[in-house]
């Protein structure tokens, strides 16, 4: 098949899947939706793989879309290296998430809606990835935001979920407003929306006022970056992402960790040739600041999903920084590894939460290392990748961004040095919160609260655990070792399989032939290599890791101890500040309230204008017409009517006068008659 039909087939199956699954609402087939969706996603992966194999180089497909005569906008599909890996990435993770949700969401009454939304999301995300021009990208950009809105508010009877959904949509809308302005400005400068034109088309010659063309381009990129701030949760619009964890965990894994939130990075990659040095510095500084702030917030969270959410924000900051520095390859590479290990972490968290009957507080967990060994193993591998330990994909990608940052900072010393310093601080913070999370969730505790929470245990996990133990103790009575391995695999639940698969995908061998040298990563062959490698960097990172490990391990144990004995901790104001995102969230909420619902809100004057000015003016105009009518009435009565009446009165008095004459004097009458007659005759004769 040619690439055209493959791409469209790929898009169609998800869209049709969405419609079909939604139409199953309230039917007996609701339970089967997970299976149908799984089939669709596997089909999608197969089709994409064949597309990847069959279309080398850059393919551009173009169709009539908005055929306005001067500047028609075409529906363009752009398939190049950046498209290809994202196409595959989105679908493979969607496939894993689908499998996971098959079990996780299986008992929910609205399960068909969940899978329908998931399919719509994958469709929109693929559209975004394939988009060949900015308008189209914006089109699907909003659609993925809409899917995120739907999935955050999936449990629509929950108040918190609704609030989070609206917050996500509105903050994204604000970002999109900037994005849209940026699109207009870029069109104004280049006369096109298409990505493939930006690289080679010159700026339109015009008399620009206020700013010159270069500055306007910087402005345009900064405006575009406004959209990225919202979608990829960068300062100051990042507050929606932690709240978005109200949605089902698999959705968080797919949308709010692995794929949708990286759309911003993807966009920056698409417009990379346009990013001016000034805009680049702004972008990378924002990214670096975000990553530090989110890292600090993650350190003080107690909800496991919130920790992961903040860690996502922090890692997105890394990628954004990479893009700002012009390191497209490193950034996209980190995007890929992050997608796998973060999705893995989220799904592990989902397994844990489901195992603990929807308990999300990490302080109440612990001891799970023996209860869920497979999940633990997966979690450990993914965490290693998140910290950036050697042998993981995360090591390679993070190293390359950090390295690029140091190159960027040291190239021209000065204020640029801020970026690598901030990123290094972030990697220390990352180690701290990851160690804290692992210790809190999985490590043994003397007084295990888990037993209290649990009343039943999941059979598959338990069975797997038992076999695993038997395997470890090499108890060979009865059956051979091979049988035991088979049995272990058989007993592996869906959760274990999925999380382990994702964990293995975040190891180095998918990305590079050498576990320690980022130069060998195929991303750099595809998108351009690294400028320079610092040898001291791995040592610095290793030192940071060890320091973080030691500090965090001890302090976490301390924290848990204090939690059990209900001791008031020495947690200062800073901790509270960090936990609540430095009160940015509250600030926005208060601002929103103040503007729209508060005592002196903006709507009151508006309604005042509406009723007291405009409507009143209309009424006044109506009344004034009444006034004129009165004048007219007066005129009518006193002048027109009066004159008529006066005339009437005159006639009357004349009549009276004449009546006076008529007093029965017949002779006089006769005389008059004769005079009149003769006069008449005379007149007749004369004429």
């Amino acid at each position: 098949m040619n690439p055209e039909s493959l791409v469209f087939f790929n898009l169609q199956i998800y869209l049709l899947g969405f419609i079909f699954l939604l139409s199953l609402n309230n039917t007996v087939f609701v339970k089967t939706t997970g299976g149908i969706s799984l089939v669709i996603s596997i089909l999608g992966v197969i089709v994409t793989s064949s597309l990847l194999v069959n279309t080398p180089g850059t393919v551009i497909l173009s169709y009539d879309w908005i055929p306005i005569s001067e500047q028609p906008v075409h529906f363009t599909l752009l398939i190049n290296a950046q498209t290809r890996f994202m196409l595959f990435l989105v679908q493979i993770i969607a496939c894993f998430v689908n499998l996971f949700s098959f079990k996780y969401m299986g008992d929910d009454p609205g399960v068909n809606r969940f899978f329908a939304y998931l399919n719509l999301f994958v469709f929109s995300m693929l559209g975004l990835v394939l988009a060949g021009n900015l308008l189209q990208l914006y089109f699907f950009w909003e659609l993925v935001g809409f899917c995120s809105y739907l999935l955050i508010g999936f449990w629509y009877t929950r108040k918190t979920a609704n609030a989070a959904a609206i917050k996500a949509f509105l903050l994204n809308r604000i970002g999109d407003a900037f994005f849209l302005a940026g699109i207009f400005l870029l069109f104004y400068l280049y006369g096109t929306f298409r990505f493939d034109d930006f690289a080679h088309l010159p700026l339109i010659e015009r008399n620009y006022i206020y700013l010159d063309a270069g500055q306007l381009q910087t402005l345009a990129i900064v405006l575009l970056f406004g959209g990225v701030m919202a979608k990829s949760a960068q300062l100051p619009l990042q507050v929606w992402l932690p709240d978005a964890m109200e949605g089902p965990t698999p959705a968080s894994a797919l949308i709010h960790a692995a794929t949708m939130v990286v759309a911003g990075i993807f966009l920056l990659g698409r417009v990379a040739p346009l990013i001016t040095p000034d805009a680049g510095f702004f972008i990378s500084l924002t990214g670096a600041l975000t990553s530090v702030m989110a890292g600090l917030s993650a350190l003080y969270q107690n909800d496991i999903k919130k920790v992961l959410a903040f860690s996502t924000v922090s890692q997105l900051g890394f990628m954004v920084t990479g893009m700002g520095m012009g390191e497209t390859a490193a950034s996209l590479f980190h995007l890929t590894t992050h997608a796998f290990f973060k999705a893995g972490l989220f799904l592990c968290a989902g397994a844990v939460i489901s195992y603990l009957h929807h308990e999300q507080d990490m302080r109440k967990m612990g001891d799970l290392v023996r209860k869920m060994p497979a999940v633990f193993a997966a979690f450990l591998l993914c965490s290693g990748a998140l910290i950036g330990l050697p042998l993981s994909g995360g090591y390679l990608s993070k190293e390359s961004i950090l390295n690029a940052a140091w190159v960027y900072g040291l190239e021209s010393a000065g204020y640029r040095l801020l970026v690598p310093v901030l990123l290094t601080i972030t990697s220390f913070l990352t180690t701290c919160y990851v160690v804290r999370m692992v210790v809190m969730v999985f490590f043994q505790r003397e007084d295990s609260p888990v037993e209290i929470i649990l009343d039943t245990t999941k059979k598959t996990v338990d069975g797997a655990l038992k076999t695993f133990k038997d395997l470890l103790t090499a108890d060979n009575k009865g059956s051979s070792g091979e049988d035991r391995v088979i049995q272990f695999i058989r007993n592996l639940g869906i959760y274990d399989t999925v999380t382990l698969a994702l964990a293995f995908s975040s190891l180095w061998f998918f990305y590079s032939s050498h576990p320690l040298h980022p130069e060998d990563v195929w991303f750099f062959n595809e998108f351009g290599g690294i400028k320079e490698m610092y040898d001291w960097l791995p040592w610095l990172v290793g030192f940071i890791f060890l320091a973080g490990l030691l500090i965090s391990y001890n302090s976490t144990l301390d924290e848990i101890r204090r939690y059990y004995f209900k001791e008031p901790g020495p947690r200062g104001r800073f901790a509270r500040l960090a936990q609540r995102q430095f009160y940015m969230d509250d600030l926005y909420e208060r601002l929103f309230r103040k503007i729209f619902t508060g005592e002196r809100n903006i709507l009151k004057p508006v309604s005042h204008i509406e009723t007291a000015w405009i409507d009143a003016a209309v009424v006044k105009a109506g009344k004034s017409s009444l006034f004129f009518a009165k004048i007219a009435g007066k005129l009518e009565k006193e002048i027109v009517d009066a004159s008529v009446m006066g005339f009437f009165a005159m006639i009357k008095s004349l009549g009276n006068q004449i009546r006076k004459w008529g007093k029965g004097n017949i002779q006089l009458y006769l005389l008059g008659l004769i005079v009149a007659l003769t006069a008449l005759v005379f007149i007749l004769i004369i004429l």
Partner: protein
Amino acid sequence: MESGILSSLILLPLLGSLLILILPRAYKTFYKWICLITQILLLINVMTILGLFDRENPDYQFIEHSEWFRLSLGSKSILSIDYILGVDGLSISMVALSSLVFLIAAVSSFRISYREKTYFSLFLLLTASVLGCFLAVDFFLFFVFFEFMLLPMYFLIGIWGGENRAYASLKFFIYTFSGSVLILVVMICMVISNQDEFFTSEYARLVYSFDFRTLKDTNNLISSSILSIENPVLIFGLPAREFMFLLLLIGFGIKMPVVPFHTWLPDAHVEAPTPVSVILAGILLKIGGYGILRVAYEILPDATEKYAVLIGALGLVSVIYGALNALNQTDLKKMIAYSSVSHMGFVFIGIAAFNSIGFNGAVFQMFSHGILSSMLFLIAGVIYERTHDRNISAFQGLAKKMPVYTLLVAIAFFGSLGLPSLSGFIGEFLTLHGAFQSDHLPKLIPAFGIIGIVLSAIYFLLTFQRMFFGEFNTREEYRTLLKDLTKTEIFMLGSLAVLTILTGVWPNLIIRYINSSLTEILK
């Protein structure tokens, strides 16, 4: 080619109206069917026209031209008033929209349960005059239809409206009537400033023609007349052409409605019965935008372009001010009415751009708003007919009880707030894009116009959340009344929803009809 197909669009509803008037009351169940069948026939005719329409040809097509009357003004001149119908890209989009919306409104009118005879005959009369207004190529004919529309509308609101209907219908009438007076003044001035060259030579007398094609040709301008370009006559210190344009702007601005001439709209909408609201928002508002393009811009292009900033600013104020007012409402129908003001503001922004992107965007936005606002008013009608309550706060958690309704409301709301893949987005995008690329407007107007998009998201989302999410919770007596949609309602809302999605995904569907005409108008 004189096929008479355009005349049939006007004659059919007139005949239907007559038939309803003749038919005795004993057959009153037939009235609504006559009305519906007429609308279906009209839609078939419109579809035929769409099929035969040459999309590349920017001029009027299917022209029907016959003399109506000639008025001799002394021995020197003749007033020639003709019956000319024709469609170009601009009017065909509006005709198609009207025919669709009228069909939906006719279905929705099945619920009318008293004085059916008057209702349905007025309804068909309204259909005829609206279609006539879009089809007329003669200014006089246009004006006659334009004026005549008020009459059935006044009665439809005044008789079948809500409690405060008398006030609302009167306000509507006075507002729009004063608008038409201004247009009348302009019409007279325009006509006496233009001579029809062809007829002038034939009759050897000066012929004043009302034909739009004559009026827009500046060669026909009499050099000493009031509208002449070379020797401008000053009225209140303004050149006459500009003054005439301002009169038109107010006249059509009231119809549109644009802030500050909009206050009739919320009242009229709140009081009008559902089908009339649908027609009012879906079609009648579009005549304002249509008039600006057809009359003001085609005949007075220089004056119109000169006031681009004014038009854009009026549009911008409408967008923001309408949205803020919508945020302020507790009544669902009022909220929707103000959202109409806000969305029609985009039409003005698009027109003010004076490039083909903006014009296409403006007409697309009119079409899209026609569909979406019809949906929104039907949605308000669904709730009102069940409970006789329109307060947003009276309902909560409807999603669980009325899933199909929720889905369709979601399409309408998200379409209105400009979610891509639904038609609202394309209209808003194109108008703002056109305005941004335009040389006539400061960039601030589209930049602030974008704020309107954010605001519309706020009020639609908040309303959606309040009414549909959370646990099901309303007053006790509403619980049994709130049932999911009937089949008719699903048909009405569903077909409109399909249209929004179709035009939103593939805007070409509309733009290929309107593009060449709008580009021609710009020249």
